[in-house]
């Protein structure tokens, strides 16, 4: 299971890569592996205000429908439209393909997220 060190993680298996007040958000290797073949991504809406822990999109595999939760509160600055045409990119490279970029409204949200080590331990409890 690939869990890059420099990212932060949620219990719902999203990752966020924070750079100043910008955060790239995607789904983890664990998430793509457990979903199986991903065939549809409903992206967050551009400029939408999202709240930490709230639904902002959907990722669907052949079998399952998974809600995408925002790891932080803020505004959606950009969405990765490439995923609408090629959702399988999330299977192929879950950390190389972000889903949305969020402008953080509260850096304090990051304290509620897990480090790579914490996320790894968390995933082990789920097996």
């Amino acid at each position: 299971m690939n869990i890059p060190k420099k990212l932060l993680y949620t219990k719902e298996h999203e990752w966020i890569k924070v750079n100043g007040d910008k955060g790239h958000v995607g789904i983890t290797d664990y998430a793509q592996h457990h979903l199986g073949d991903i065939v549809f991504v409903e992206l967050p809406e551009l400029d939408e205000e999202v709240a930490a822990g709230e639904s902002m999109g959907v990722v669907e595999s052949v079998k399952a429908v998974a809600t995408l939760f925002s790891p932080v509160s803020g505004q959606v600055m950009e969405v990765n439209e490439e995923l609408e045409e090629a959702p399988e990119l999330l299977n192929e490279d879950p950390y190389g393909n972000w889903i949305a970029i969020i402008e953080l409204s509260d850096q304090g949200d990051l304290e509620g997220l897990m480090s790579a080590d914490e996320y790894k331990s968390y995933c082990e409890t789920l097996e």
Partner: protein
Amino acid sequence: MSLKRTPLYPMHLKYNGKIIDFGGWELPVQYEGMGIIKEHNMVREKAGLFDVSHMGEIIIIGDRAEEMVQRLVTNDVKSMQDFQVMYSPMCYPSGGVVDDLLVYRYDSKNYLLVVNAANADKDYEWIQQNLIPGVEASNRSAEYAQLALQGPAAQQILQKLTSLDLNAIRFFWFNPQVNISGVECLVSRTGYTGEDGFEIYVQPQQAEFIWEEIMGAGGEQISPIGLGARDSLRFEAKLPLYGQEIDQDITPLEAGLGFFVKLEAGDFIGRSALLKQKQEGLKRKLVEFSMLGKGIPRSHYEVEVGGLPVGHVSSGMHSPTFKQPIGLALLNMEHCEAGTEIDILIRNKPVKARVGKGIFYKKKTKSK
């Protein structure tokens, strides 16, 4: 309640199946390194091996067995010859479906019914309740393991393991004594994928051996296939799934299975309700649809026209063969014409779709 395992469970571990709870059975949804889409394509292009040992087997024996089976199911059992297989719904007096099943006729006093795993106990009870004198029913599910070998390469693979010319087993016929690698098996040319192929019934203690023989004979041409692709394959071929296209509240006529309802065949259970429904005309029926807007239709999503409910999706998914979402919906009659625009409620938002005809996979089974 503890989960049940099929005799092939060790094979699912060996081939790295991802095990799920499927109606109380521990079965693989897919295999590591493959996944639903690859497994699906393997069956369409080459061959796949499925463990379907969870299916139920009920035998009906006695002087009046033919009459009994005819009374239970909607298809024309009396027209069957020895060693023929027939698909049929089995109905309640209301016309709703108890289950859909395969009838194997050994002779007019000896039948094997193969039923859905989740319905096996219910079916057996139903059959017992409707038993006529001179007939016995017995639930033999634990005595059979069942493998399905499906795909264009299925025959070529199985032929390597038997001296019997498999061309002799025609579509929807069976041979109860096929020697496969030294083991006696019942083999029918049947399946649930829309491809040519076989279903192989064997004693549980021989199941692993037969599995490995077939995997070995198949080499690069075969892969084990999980329940995920079993569902996507049957769906694309528009083969009904109990609980979705048919159930106790949906009649075979509504589900487009009228071909398997032979009202002239005899007085089967549900006949008068189905006859009445046919005479009065259907109020709803199953239709194909494709998506115009973005989204994937799923089982039980509501369907609307002009903001009013007109039915629901029975099955829907991203079709691996067509690489786009398609679906089946049970709709009120006035919205069933091909070309009609409908709204699928996906997460409470209406998404445009269009009723179609002939948009599903054309079966490659050797029906002649």
